[in-house]
């Protein structure tokens, strides 16, 4: 008889378990719409882009110098969130982080004006006017930021503006961990 009594509690226990699992998922802060990058754990795809500034070398995979971790940022002058994350990129540049930029579907003159206005944190900048290099990386919108470690492996991808919180909670620990 007690066994049958217990059976009455089964739906309630099941519901409580489901609610707990749901809460844990929501509290984990994982964005269910965030598309996981297949590039994490792999080397970046090959690419070869015209430099944004005359006289600079072309931006290719060779820019990921062995032993020197890099932060690669896809940006555009027409992208509003890029303005929000720009102070964080400038901060990283002041700290000596190896920042590489790719101007995504932007007119070179507009991209140059954007950087003249807000400051240029990048060591090298390539122009991806067709957006094809972005597709090779699996970019689905700007801004997107990648961290590539000293052995040339992508360790992190973030889609959206790198806020001070994202910088401190996600990118800085990686920069520390993979510091050469």
């Amino acid at each position, binding site marked *: 008889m007690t066994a049958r009594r217990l059976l009455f509690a089964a739906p309630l226990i099941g519901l409580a378990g489901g609610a707990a699992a749901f809460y844990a998922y929501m509290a984990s802060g994982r964005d269910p719409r965030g598309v996981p990058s297949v590039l994490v754990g792999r080397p970046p795809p090959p690419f070869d882009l015209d430099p944004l500034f005359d006289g600079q070398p072309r931006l290719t995979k060779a820019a990921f110098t062995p032993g020197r971790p890099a932060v690669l940022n896809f940006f555009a002058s027409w992208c509003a969130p890029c303005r929000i994350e720009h102070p964080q990129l400038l901060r990283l540049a002041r700290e000596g982080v190896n920042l590489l930029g790719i101007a995504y579907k932007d007119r070179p003159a507009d991209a140059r004006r954007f950087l003249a206005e807000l400051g240029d944190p990048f060591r090298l900048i390539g122009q991806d006017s067709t957006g094809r290099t972005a*597709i090779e990386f699996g970019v689905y919108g700007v801004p997107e930021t990648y961290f590539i470690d000293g052995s040339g492996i992508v360790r992190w991808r973030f889609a959206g503006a790198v806020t001070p919180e994202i910088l401190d909670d996600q990118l800085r620990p990686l920069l520390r961990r993979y510091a050469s």
Partner: protein
Amino acid sequence: MTRLALALLLFAAPALAAPDPREMLENPAQEARAREISKGLRCLVCQNQSIDDSNAELARDLRLLVRERIAAGDSDDQVLAFVTRRYGDYVLLTPPFKASTALLWVGPGLVLLAAATGAFFYLRRRPAPDSVAPLSDAERKRLAKLLDDPA
């Protein structure tokens, strides 16, 4: 007259939804394959639309990419592999059957099986309907009276 024009415009809607002719491939068979593939690829900007439906810039780029791969001689599977190597399985509107998606695919079947098992045991244990007690003499008389009553 206006109504007629509006009605005609409505009927023309499917034609207006056709792809941008500048994007289309010359070869109709290849174009048909490209459209079929595009319908199965998620637009990552709008997420619940296929790239065939979407007006997003990235969706257009991916449509062109699909056509480019087909024109280069890729099979349908090769085109899908090309896109998933860059964007992951998430880009497929029909997820592939793998360990991580197994529950998604067999889940509904498991729920149905559990419900059927429960129903089977419940129905088997239910008392047979003929165990209902017959009417007493008094009840039978009252019933006869009610049925005979002309009013």
